[in-house]
């Protein structure tokens, strides 16, 4: 089991550790998931995301290579800008969703999911063979990463660096933090404003501790999941899958079919998915979980499957994301044999004020 640079800090804070994607990660700290969730919604949550994978893509043909292997349009990127996108297989399934950071037209950083780092590296290694001038490197072990999220996140970050950073959404910058060169990006996975800070592995703990001193609340994977679900941000292995066509996964906004060509495009053009992700609110007591069946309320026929579900701490409701036949109107979820009716919910379930 791999450990992040913050492992010792988590133990010292009394975190409950669990295996996740080959890593030993904190699922929650002593004050509990709901406390951490609310701290992020109302003040500032800190998340150890050092387990995420980082891959550099460099060389003269780097832009062409990335344009061909991702579904979003890389031409929308410029230096210092980040883009959410996905790597698709030939069948249009999602190998992983990722963020691409552009330092220069020949210098990119890819941030991929921890549990998919290996498959992403293998995929990149295979596809890059056709591009003589492009090289990749898995630099995951060199980087720690801390997500600082919530309405007070930027106040804390600005205090930490001693300057008003003023980054626009999805921009990033190399910044000297306490004498250490870090990369600060205005991105996140909670539905709140904030940043993700890439730190050299050996300096991660120092910066983490400084952020805690400034008022950030350490949050585990549990709160990370409830926060992202309220914000309807998809998670690979749940909404995003290698055997589900990307156009059905709720990430259509990053699929640019007008792009000349990219891996998976042909499948996307030729497939109209029978099911798509939709948001549901359970209207009777119960919580739907990943894998629960979705049935047509009128006919009882199975018409889909729940991908994620929880009791939403912010909304006080039971919410779920599910693949459901596009033709189905009213559906129910089957939780341990009980049929629980649902109402459709527009996504995201939660949107912060002022956006």
């Amino acid at each position: 089991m791999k450990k992040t640079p913050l492992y010792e800090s988590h133990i010292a804070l009394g975190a409950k550790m669990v295996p996740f994607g080959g890593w030993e990660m904190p699922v929650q700290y002593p004050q509990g998931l709901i406390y951490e969730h609310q701290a992020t919604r109302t003040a500032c949550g800190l998340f150890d995301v050092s387990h995420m994978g980082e891959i550099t893509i460099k060389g003269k043909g780097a832009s062409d290579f990335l344009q061909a292997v991702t579904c979003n349009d890389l031409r929308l990127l410029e230096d210092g800008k980040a883009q959410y996108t996905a790597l698709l297989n030939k069948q249009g399934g999602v190998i992983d969703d990722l963020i691409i950071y552009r330092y220069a037209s020949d210098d990119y950083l890819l941030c991929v999911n921890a549990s998919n780092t290996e498959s992403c590296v293998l995929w990149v290694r295979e596809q890059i063979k056709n591009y003589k001038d492009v090289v990749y490197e898995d630099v995951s072990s060199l980087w720690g990463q801390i997500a600082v999220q919530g309405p007070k996140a930027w106040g804390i970050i600005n205090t930490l660096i001693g300057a008003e950073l003023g980054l626009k959404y999805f921009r990033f910058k190399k910044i000297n933090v306490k004498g250490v060169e870090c990369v600060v990006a205005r991105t996140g996975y909670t539905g709140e404003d904030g940043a993700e800070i890439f730190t050299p592995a050996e300096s991660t703990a120092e910066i983490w501790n400084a952020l805690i001193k400034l008022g950030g609340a350490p949050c585990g994977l549990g709160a990370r999941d409830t926060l992202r679900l309220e914000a309807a941000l998809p998670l690979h292995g749940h909404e995003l899958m290698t055997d589900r066509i990307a156009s059905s996964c709720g990430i259509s906004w990053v699929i640019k079919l007008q792009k000349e060509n990219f891996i998976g495009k042909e499948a996307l053009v030729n497939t109209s998915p029978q099911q798509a992700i939709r948001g549901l609110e359970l209207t009777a007591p119960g919580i739907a979980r990943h894998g629960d069946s979705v049935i047509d309320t009128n006919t009882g026929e199975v018409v889909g499957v729940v991908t994620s579900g929880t009791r939403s701490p912010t909304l006080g409701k039971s919410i779920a994301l599910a693949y459901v036949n596009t033709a189905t109107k009213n559906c129910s979820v089957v939780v341990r044999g009980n049929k629980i009716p649902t109402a459709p919910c527009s996504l995201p379930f939660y949107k912060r004020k002022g956006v």
Partner: protein
Amino acid sequence: MSSPSDRRYTKDHEWVKVTGGKAQVGISNFAQGELGDVVFVDLPKTGKKVSRGDVLCVVESTKAASDVYAPISGEVAEVNATLSSNPEKINASPYEEGWIAVINPSNIKETEDLFTSEQYDVFTKSK
């Protein structure tokens, strides 16, 4: 913290407290700590017949659903309806306000081979 000595415990972390021939059941402090914030309790129906080890009900934390097993056989005589609106009582008071159900036991002797509080504390220390 040592567990209350007025009841018995299972290896699955339920407790059972017998008074006046009735068995009150719930989950231990250790169990609530492992579960995390409880957000929903799928309470059993009164009249439900259970054998020891059957699923009595399901307790859901924000993260996952966990089965609660009947520590004793019998018929569910009463449920703690407060948990429908205040499931967090299981976290705050697992041994008192967070009780789950009262069972009319069919064989009271079943409690004899369950852990005593001392045995249970030793058992959870090894976890």
